[in-house]
């Protein structure tokens, strides 16, 4: 593969990961918002005394944001940075 091809491939991989992770975040968040809008009784139901499903899922969305960012940073630090370093070295 030529230099240009590999740069294109890396660029495509970065956008693919970026868009998938963004889509995952949107799925979690809008899933939560749609439940708030359409199934209030479900979110108001108690998991244990004092803890409603709504509060639990809300905290889960915040944790999900952290986890998705962690996945991205891990990929970027491990694969993306090394690949870019190699490409830069060849130029």
């Amino acid at each position, binding site marked *: 593969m030529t230099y240009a091809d590999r740069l294109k491939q890396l660029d495509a991989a970065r956008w693919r990961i970026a868009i998938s992770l963004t889509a995952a*975040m949107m799925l979690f968040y809008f899933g939560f918002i749609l439940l708030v809008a359409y199934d*209030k009784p479900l979110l108001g139901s108690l998991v244990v005394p004092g803890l409603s499903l*709504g*509060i639990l899922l809300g905290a889960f969305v915040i944790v999900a944001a952290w986890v998705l960012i962690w996945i991205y940073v891990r990929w970027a630090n491990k694969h993306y940075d090394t690949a870019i370093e190699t490409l830069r070295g060849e130029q």
Partner: protein
Amino acid sequence: MTALFFFVFIAFSLGVTYVAARRTHSAAHFYTAGGRVTGLQNGLALAGDYMSAASFLGIAGLVALSGFDGLIYSIGFLVGWPVVMFLIAEPLRNLGKYTFADVVAFRLRQAPVRVAAAIGSLAVVSFYLIAQMVGAGNLIRLLFGLEYELAVMIVGAVMLAYVLFGGMMATTWVQIIKAVLLLSGAFLLAVMALSRFGFNPLALFRAAADQYGVAVLGPGRLVSNPFDAMSLGLALMLGTAGLPHILMRFYTVPDAKTARSSVSYATAFIGFFYLLTFILGFGAMVLVGQPAIRAIDAGGNMAAPLLAKAVGGDAFLGFISAVAFATILAVVAGLTLAGAATLSHDLWVNVVRHGDASELEQLRVARASTIVLGVLAIVLGIVFKGQNVAYMVGLAFAIAASANFPALLLSMFWRRFTTRAAQMSMLAGTASSLILIYLSPTIQIDILKNAAASFPLRNPGLVSIPLSFAVAIAVARLWPEPEAEARFAEVEHRVHAIPAPRS
């Protein structure tokens, strides 16, 4: 006591400004602190810019008065950060210099893009400034009994001192100090509130349910229309990635890797802070009580300070109030700096001077713009007295998501994007969000007292964001720009910080 904490903070931060001022000699220092901020520092500064008065006072108050519904805001404000991380931060750092318009204009014709970007940015900055100034005026009036107008002028004057003399260096350090104060203050307040409940959040939520009914733990009336909820959610999620003062911070770090780590830190701090708002809101609801919170301010904005007084007495109230004030001051400084960068770097240097202006001239124009914006902030704060702070911030996010985000994203990864598409998308996003805000129930029914509103949603995001994307795509398809497409190879290299090959 409050006054003491208050003056200590102002004196200390002006000291920081004095030190920073001695190092601010060039436009690069004024806008980006010379690009030498570390990941942790920038993470704190981003968190500082983001955790505005709306977050601390507004959300705690909303939770205290309406329970779970308030948490919808906490969560919405956080989910914009993964979007910034995945789509914007690193390419933005690699392609631009001082403002996000640098990136949009990278391979397009400079003048039309920068003028459109400036219109969008200034609209966002103005709405955001109104919210902060109104919050500041109310806070100082409540704490010291000063006149609202005088309070707004004091905030404007102190903020001008930071930005004018210390530029981005001082603004960043004021942000860092404020973020540390706010995070530790909110944490301490949450721990002290929880100590009344055996350090068990569930015991606190149980107490709230016992006192006000179990309904406070579930969704209530605040989100009644599903489309309203979706519209606000979309605006909050994509708006963060279009806020000029947030985007500008990515130019203060040396490279894309540091931009990446700064978003990680920022998201960790901001998420932690919003989790704390769960405790603060319900804590105020139980320990202060809804009637007492309402008696002081109908919007509930004083819930967090009142909780501080209930658990820690007057000294703690003083500390928390000073923190809230510092929060507003720092956010206003960040916004003004971003607005000044748009006026001087985008409009004056790149449009009027065609990119050819001396360092001294750039710095002079930047400082003049700062003064203009500072005066504007004071005037807007006085004119919009009595507006709901959290709502105004929601609108600023909607304009940012419609005007700036689509053009910024498409310019970085769509080969066929054109000058005209960028220009029309930014103008359509700004105009449609402003017009729909004007036609919304909030303006038509609540403010103008009309019987009905011609647009049903309180937040325009659900319509204006897709519209801005559609305009961009349609215009680019109808009027292709081969030169812009040819220059995309350069973007493909520079986006990864690889120098483009000479053709």
